[in-house]
């Protein structure tokens, strides 16, 4: 009998390999098919001629708002990491786990309210 699929994640790998093969072939392989006419203007960054202000490659000045959003994302992502197993196993968990999860969500909500009031969520 042929090898039965041992782990459920192997086909995902095969499917992902198809995707990567297709993407890599077109980006690297077909990328060289096009014509090659050198022209210095082409290689200048797209800035309508002016020098790009924050030199992005030397770590240009990035507004701090993106850092705050990244941190808030981490906090709420962690919250959903705990909500998923709770939701899946909800049938066998009793009222105790329900109350515990409500307290957990309320604690994170306190942090959320604090960030909201201190203006962490406002975009200028």
């Amino acid at each position: 009998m042929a090898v039965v699929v041992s782990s459920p994640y192997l086909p995902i790998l095969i499917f992902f390999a198809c995707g990567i093969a297709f993407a890599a072939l077109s980006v690297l392989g077909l990328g060289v098919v096009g014509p090659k006419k050198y022209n210095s203007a082409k290689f200048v960054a797209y800035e309508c001629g002016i020098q790009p202000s924050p030199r992005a490659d030397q770590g240009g000045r990035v507004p701090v708002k993106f850092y705050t959003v990244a941190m808030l994302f981490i906090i709420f992502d962690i919250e959903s990491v705990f909500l998923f197993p709770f939701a899946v196993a909800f049938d066998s968990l009793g009222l105790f786990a329900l109350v515990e999860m409500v307290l957990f969500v309320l604690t994170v909500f306190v942090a959320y309210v604090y960030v909201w009031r201190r203006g962490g969520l406002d975009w200028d």
Partner: protein
Amino acid sequence: MSLMNYVYLAIVLFAIGAATVLVRRNAIIVFMGIELMLNAVNLAFVTFARMNGSLDGQAVALFVMVVAAAEVVVGLAIIMTIHRSRRSASVDDANLLKL
């Protein structure tokens, strides 16, 4: 293919992380080294959970991930304030407090 090989891999990763922390100068790279060490410990926990047949190790791995995330938030905030007030995140420059 005994499971101890995973533990040896975890030890090697832990050593690499510790070396990164001790050798590198940029605070963010040092911080990445610490994260690598925490992930190595995660691997060790999950391997021991598998060897003992209990699920405690995986619960601990979940907690370690949460703690690592909280550490990222606090750590990057401190490294950012240092970077903004000194224009450099290098750990060597932080030498005002001396023996």
